[in-house]
């Protein structure tokens, strides 16, 4: 496939936002359990950043559409289409994050409810609902790709696992960066915990990404030129694709990059998305520094954009069998 930048930014930005939201709720739970009061700014600024990332992703997604003014129609076919489900799940998650942030901003309304012998703030309860919608959004987004069985590289549970792990890893890196910032500085131990979770998730994400690289390397295409034409002769060469110029199909389904270029992107995303952030994060497990965490965050995000680019470029669409030559 030819990697569409709009979708690359959509999936990486909302993934990071979803991960950050998870980090906020984990922090809040920890705060509740340990009974230590946090800097409330952490949750307010965190919530606002989640919203920014989600809106940013949404804006990016509009560039993917031929008719963005009709985007509202996309909610219609949620019974069959994962894309339609994503179009519904994203605003629901956004709305929950918005109300969550408002509650954190106005502690007066953030009342405490107790049941089962435990006390919960309203924002924490809403946070649990948010986590559920966050997970649904991850499932919808990744299933858009994983449900297409013709794209064998995507048609695997690893697609969903990778989307979730990479989103959460970058979200926790962002949360640790935020927690280390002077303005919203939280308890030092919390900050270190966040960096440690970011380290763990990035490591796990690396393992699963390597697994999917290995799986895709071994894949054998189900469709061949023989099955595409229904002619069994082992030697078939295309001499014309029906036009002397490129076509929509070539533009959409092939990236046109060299093997060397693709391989470099793979090493770039393995290094920047996982390797370097892991190295940086390991230095942050005793004492976190905002500048160094920010470096880890930027490096990781660039790496994950490269990863998503590779994810698209790696998928080989069977229609390419019909477009092997321009003539």
């Amino acid at each position, binding site marked *: 496939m030819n990697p569409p930048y709009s979708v690359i930014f959509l999936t990486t930005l909302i993934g990071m936002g979803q991960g950050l939201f998870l980090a906020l709720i984990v922090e809040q739970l920890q705060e509740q359990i340990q009974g230590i009061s946090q800097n409330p700014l952490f949750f307010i600024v965190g919530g606002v950043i989640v919203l920014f990332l989600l809106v940013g992703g949404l804006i990016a997604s509009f560039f993917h559409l031929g008719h963005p003014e009709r985007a509202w129609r996309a909610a219609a076919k949620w019974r069959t289409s994962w894309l339609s489900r994503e179009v519904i799940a994203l605003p629901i998650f956004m709305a929950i994050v918005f109300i969550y942030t408002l509650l954190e901003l106005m502690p007066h309304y953030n009342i405490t409810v107790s049941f089962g012998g435990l006390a919960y703030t309203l924002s924490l309860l809403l946070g649990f609902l948010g986590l559920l919608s966050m997970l649904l959004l991850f499932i919808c987004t990744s299933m858009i790709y994983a449900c297409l069985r013709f794209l064998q590289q995507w048609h695997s549970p690893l697609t969903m696992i990778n989307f979730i792990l990479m989103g959460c890893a970058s979200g926790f890196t962002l949360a640790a960066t935020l927690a280390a910032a002077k303005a919203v500085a939280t308890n030092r131990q919390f900050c270190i915990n966040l960096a440690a979770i970011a380290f763990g998730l990035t490591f796990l994400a690396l393992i699963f990404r390597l697994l999917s690289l290995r799986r895709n390397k071994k894949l054998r295409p189900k469709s061949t030129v023989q099955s595409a034409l229904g002619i069994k002769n082992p030697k078939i060469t295309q001499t014309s694709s029906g036009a002397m110029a490129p076509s929509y199909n070539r533009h959409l389904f092939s990236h046109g990059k060299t093997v060397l270029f693709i391989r470099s992107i793979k090493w770039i995303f393995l290094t920047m998305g996982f390797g370097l952030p892991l190295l940086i994060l390991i230095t942050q497990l005793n004492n976190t520094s905002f500048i160094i965490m920010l470096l880890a965050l930027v490096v990781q995000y660039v790496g994950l954009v490269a990863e998503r680019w590779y994810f698209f470029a790696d998928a080989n*669409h069977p229609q390419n069998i019909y477009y092997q030559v321009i003539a």
Partner: protein
Amino acid sequence: MTVETNSKTKQLALVIDLNVCVGCQACVTSCKQWNTSGTAGPLADHNPYDADPVGTFFNRVQTFEVGEYPDTEVVHFPKSCLHCENPPCVPVCPTGASYKRAEDGIVLVDYDKCIGCNYCSWACPWGVRELDEYKKVMTKCTLCVDRIDDETLEERDRKPACVLACPTNARIFGDIHDPESDAAKAIENRGGYQLMPEWETNPSNHYLPRDNKRFAEQNQAAEEQL
């Protein structure tokens, strides 16, 4: 991810005879002419007279060389939407713009509902859907639905433009669920087959294999090797 179709209902389709297609592109040009002139607006051509012309086509004839020199055959291979009985492009559409018409099984796009997200074209293994660069909506073969439905046309003209244009009669049009139709008979009697059967989408368009002896022997030999 399946759209159920009843095999008792009508299923219009094309049956392409690979024995007689000479690769003249008359089906391509007649398709373009008819579908660029209709009520749905033009099919875009970008830079038609320039260095990198790109245009929207519903139907393309591709050419393949089969076998090893000197035992080669040139196969001209017309390809347009196969109007699958379980079209994988339909359930993925988020707006419902892509649909399979119940009464005759034609897979169509409602241009007024399409948001141009390309997702249906990702979900089609044959690459027969093309986004129109100017209309910014997904377009595809309609089996010239505006001819088939047009009762002001004479019965013999209510067929896709490509079928009427083909000089060698390589395109047989009809209801493949009606055993008495020319299309169903051709599939039945001449070994009509589907493309990429491995995806189990049950394409309605069929292809008739070459019945020349050497070609059949080569295929046979290849099959035995496997």
